[in-house]
């Protein structure tokens, strides 16, 4: 337990230091850095579900959308009156407090939807679950598209930009801490048991549906948090930003990093955030053959190849053996 707290404290300090440096970054690098933090939250959360519990979800973007839209609406409607209520001159502090509360509510909202979706669908086997979660993700997107109060297809703008490097990396560290502690605890062995053999786990007295639902709700919660960060970073939300391909992005991070390896998934999240940017840079180089440019600009061609090749050649992922966080939350034994 002690290791974990030290890790969390150090990571939060690092995030704080990074944030102090962040003001000197140019806007593009700043944007990429914040996105890395958000993607780490998404991927590590989904890894709890796919990697540790063995349940496949293709609707992660839907839960991200719930968190993003919830927190965006709260900020747009209540932030000014909250600041007036506090009556303080130092509004940065209070607006950050408000931001934290809003993120939590967004996360809880996504977790609640995750619970509603998870209870009926997690009784299903893997391949069915993939289709059902895909369906729910699409339903959430279509609902937003048809709700005028949420901006429908016009999109929704968020009035303040509260997300900074501290929030993005700080919450990423919290996500890593929570997921690693959860999986490595005695209680968390249940997730692995359900993944490795559901029937055997049931025979050992593990309530597999309960574990699956918990994993699903926790993953949705963190997707909601990531959505809130995304909303207050980009300051503009459209339903199209949360389509099926966004879910695929996160799935590819988990698969490339190695299902069940937190460290691997973090590395993959970083790589896959930087890679499209790098490819975009490459595609603008001079002297490139004309057929190469669209190939470089469509990240999905590369992502689909990653999925196929990784599964054929290295199903444990690029960094599947990395176990940096396997000590977090584990009790010391004699």
């Amino acid at each position, binding site marked *: 337990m002690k290791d974990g707290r030290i890790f969390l404290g150090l990571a939060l300090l690092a995030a704080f230091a990074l944030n102090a440096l962040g003001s000197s970054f140019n806007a593009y690098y700043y944007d990429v850095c914040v996105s890395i933090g958000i993607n780490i939250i998404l991927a590590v959360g989904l890894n709890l579900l796919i990697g540790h519990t063995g349940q496949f979800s293709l609707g992660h973007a839907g839960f991200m959308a719930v968190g993003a839209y919830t927190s965006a609406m709260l900020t747009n409607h209540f932030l000014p009156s909250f600041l007036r209520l506090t009556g303080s001159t130092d509004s940065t502090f209070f607006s950050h407090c408000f931001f934290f509360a809003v993120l939590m509510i967004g996360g809880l909202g996504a977790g609640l939807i995750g619970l509603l979706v998870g209870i009926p*669908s997690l009784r*299903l086997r893997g391949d069915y679950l993939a*289709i059902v979660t895909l*369906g729910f993700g699409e339903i959430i997107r*279509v609902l937003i598209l048809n709700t005028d109060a949420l901006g429908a297809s016009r999109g929704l703008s968020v009035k303040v930009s509260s997300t900074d490097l501290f929030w993005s990396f700080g919450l990423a560290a919290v996500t890593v801490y929570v997921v690693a502690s959860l999986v490595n605890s005695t209680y968390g062995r249940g997730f692995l048991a359900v993944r490795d053999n559901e029937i055997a786990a049931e025979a050992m007295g593990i309530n597999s549906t309960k574990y699956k639902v918990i994993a699903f709700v926790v993953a949705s919660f963190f997707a909601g948090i990531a959505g809130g960060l995304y909303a207050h970073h980009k300051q503009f939300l459209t339903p199209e930003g949360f389509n099926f391909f966004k879910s695929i992005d996160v799935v590819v991070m988990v698969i490339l990093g190695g299902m069940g390896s937190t460290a691997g998934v973090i590395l993959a999240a970083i790589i896959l955030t930087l890679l499209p940017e790098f490819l975009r840079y490459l595609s603008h180089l001079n002297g490139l053959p004309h057929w190469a440019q669209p190939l470089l600009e*469509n990240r999905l061609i590369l992502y*689909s190849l990653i999925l196929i090749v990784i*599964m054929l050649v290295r199903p444990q992922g690029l960094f599947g053996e990395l176990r940096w966080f396997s000590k977090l939350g584990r009790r010391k034994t004699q």
Partner: protein
Amino acid sequence: MDLTLFLQQLINGISLGSIYALIALGYTMVYGVLRFINFAHGDIYMLGAFFGFALAPLLAQLFPAGAGIYGAVAILLTAMALCAGMGIIIEKLAYRPLRDRPRLTVLITAIGVSLFIQNMTQYFVGAEPKGFPELIPIQAIDGLGKLTVLTSQATIIGVTLILLFLLRFIVMKTKLGMAMRALSLNPTACSLMGVNNGRVISFTFALGSALAAAAGILVAFDSPSIDPMMGNTPGIKAFVAAVLGGIGNIPGAALGGLILGITETMVVGYINPNLRDAIAFAILIVILLCRPSGLLGKVEREKV
């Protein structure tokens, strides 16, 4: 309730349902022999339409006077053959090396294959929708009173019926069909009886892909706008149809397709057109909760 309107919706539903049925058969047959969901099946349907699109100018060159109905049949058969080949290639390259791996591995590969086909097609032909040439004249059939039945709808229903009978013949009366049925019962015992399992699996993929290609061409007759992402929604809906009928069960897939198509047009016509894509998922969730083995499927106990 207006009877004409109801009949009209019913005909529209049957023609839509025929398409779902053709695609669903591929899902269900592959599930029967390999126990996995071929996510890339909807993209084979898309490829079928695009093969037809590419073949049509070729045909026009060969027969400048217009080949008429024979041209349409030739294009349909060629596209089916090409897609059957694609199905075999995909199975050989992507799925066969994973034969004994966990289910999740194969599922992820299938998602990868699906995305790859879509995006490579988009790379080669562009993302914007293409107009499919009018191979058969689309007009209303005379003499049906107030009902409007388009020639394209009649073609869809007719060709689907022919293909269904052909499929039934292949599965029930030929040796390969018997091998398919044996394989879906017990792969090990099947290979002990001298069946070349690999060849039967290839044949199953070819058969399913050919049916999906036929669906793609038939859809392009009726609504002549095709694009590389057109396989996504019908693919998922056809999967729902396969589950509805009982996955692994061939008559069930045809029945599920028809039910889904009719339900969808009825909901769109009488309740709310915005629900068009949501209805399939609602059906899927209800069927998985109430009767996971589907309408015609048998309950299978999972054993350790």
